[in-house]
């Protein structure tokens, strides 16, 4: 059964990738292309958050690393003239470095103290950006950021799209390797039972910091890509919204799984854009809130768990009085 499910998800992911890769040949809508780019970036960001959650650490301020990566990449690109293709990774390194620093303050804390610290950290970084760092960052007004691919090159949108697609796939493969590796096992061990992990020789502090570094690095990549795609950066990037989105994506898709953030991001993006067509503004967020709460209560393992749940329900149908309750692991 497990084997089948894994296969299903693997083929599903490959199918999604194939559709995304072939998309520009099917449609030449700039709007959709733009939407796909932002969706790919969200997938990286949600996966980054998910990787940290995989080690048992739930961040409520991941927008901080999104923003730090974006600002660092932009500023390096402006000051030195290096291509954004390189500065993305330099900016992400800065984000990872600061992520480790925050991780250091968090490693000894209870899981929900950590949520508070990360939430507060995003607010502190925003305050720094618009006050002390304002001469560099342009304060609330923000600054222009070099485009990933210069608009003067013909077909620049397609080049950009495929570049971002490649980076997304590379990130997902990297996360897949991490999750399968000893590091991923260590993350799981710490998440499930820190004491036992320690007894088995896993150093929780070290692995938590590794998780922070990897997660903030990927979040930094996502932030830098987003900003170089849009071409402008403001401190709004640090907003609470940007911290909450990846959580919503991951919870809906399935916490702690590789496919969860991908599926969650795609499904929610479709719902979000569909709702936009109905003209709802605030109502869209209300619906997202209901989806999130209903998922947590009725589908705690997310959409990736849905096929199994349906199977259990299908087998259990007809038998009166017996409710299909999925077995606990």
């Amino acid at each position: 059964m497990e084997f089948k499910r894994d296969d299903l998800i693997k083929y599903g992911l490959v199918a999604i990738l194939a559709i995304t890769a072939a998309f520009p040949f099917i449609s030449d809508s700039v709007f959709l292309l733009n939407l796909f780019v932002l969706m790919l970036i969200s997938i990286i960001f949600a996966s980054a958050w998910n990787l940290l959650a995989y080690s048992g650490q739930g961040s409520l301020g991941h927008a901080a690393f999104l923003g730090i990566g974006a600002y660092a990449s932009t500023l390096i690109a402006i000051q030195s003239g290096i291509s954004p293709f390189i500065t993305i990774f330099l900016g992400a390194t800065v984000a990872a470095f600061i992520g480790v620093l925050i991780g250091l303050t968090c490693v000894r804390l209870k899981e929900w103290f950590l949520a508070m610290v990360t939430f507060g950290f995003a607010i502190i970084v925003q305050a720094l950006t618009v006050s002390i760092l304002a001469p560099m960052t342009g304060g609330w007004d923000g600054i222009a950021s070099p485009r990933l691919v210069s608009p003067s090159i013909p077909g620049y949108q397609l080049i950009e799209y495929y570049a971002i697609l490649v980076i997304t796939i590379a990130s997902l493969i990297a996360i897949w390797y991490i999750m399968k590796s000893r590091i991923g096992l260590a993350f799981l061990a710490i998440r499930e039972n820190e004491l036992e992990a320690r007894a088995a020789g896993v150093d929780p502090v070290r692995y938590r910091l590794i998780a922070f570094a990897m997660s903030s690095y990927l979040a930094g990549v996502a932030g830098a890509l987003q900003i170089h795609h849009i071409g402008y950066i403001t401190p709004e990037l640090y907003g609470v919204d940007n911290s909450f989105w990846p959580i919503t994506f991951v919870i809906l898709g399935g916490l702690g799984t590789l496919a969860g953030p991908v599926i969650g991001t795609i499904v929610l993006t479709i719902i979000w854009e569909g709702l936009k067509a109905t003209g709802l503004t605030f109502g869209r967020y209300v619906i997202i809130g209901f989806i999130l709460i209903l998922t947590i209560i009725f589908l705690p393992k997310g959409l990736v768990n849905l096929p199994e749940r349906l199977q259990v329900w299908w087998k259990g149908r007809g038998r009166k009085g017996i409710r299909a309750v999925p077995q606990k692991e």
Partner: protein
Amino acid sequence: MDNIGIFLQIMFWGLYAGCIYILLATGLNLIFGVMKIVNFAHGEFLMIGAYITATVFLLTGINPYVILLLSMLALVGIGAVIERLCFRPILGTGKLNEIFLSIGLIYIFQNGAAMIWGDAWQSVKSPYDGITVPVGSLNVPVDYIIIIAFTAAILIALFLFLKKTRIGMEMRATSQNRKGAKLIGINVERIDIISFGIGCALAAAAGTLWVVSGQVFNPYMGSIPAVKAFAIIILGGLGSIPGAIIGGLLMGIAENSAAYYLGGIWKDAISFIILIIVLVIRPTGLFGEKGE
């Protein structure tokens, strides 16, 4: 104004801001103490309380300090429903789950309120607007004094409720030992609902006092004060109501000093800087040893 005058003024603003934090933090402490859940959406109850007061006041013109009671009652109801429908099903599945669920609640409440009342900043004028009382060298708006008095009255009432009534004692028993409370026949689920309702009512009181002070409010006003209230109860000790009071006052003063001396943007940041510094030095909080 001379330096001492400015300092006194800041202290007074801090005292007033502290009142709002104290009410929020006490409510959170009560809920956390009894149910051990982390509800980041607590500030949304403050916001709903504020809007109920403002709406009823604008429609009827009844004195807003009277509407405070109505607002608190309404929030007891809303809180009970939220507890029953959202938090009870996931009780015991982990703190992170509770936090994620409260993010959903934040989305629903903030944007639901924006659908009803719009998302613009609003403010109302209290009937005592413009009346000031000289306190030392300061001219203090009479509303601020009423607000401080109301906060004190609510806290004393809560204290008596917890110490003297049967339900209050059951709440304390549940917070000390949930299993033990069950064993001696306390209906802990009923106590959960009551505690959640009272916690929400305290948030509604905070929201009402926010509105009558003449401060601006909008549907997104609640989230940051709620997280700050959490910072306060971490600093002041989980489950400790005196800790919440002292922490709330200190936070109010620190914040207003920072806003005055460093600039308005630091008003929110300073609370978290304090929180991070304290947690680096003492990962369990200043007085936190027991609790969870």
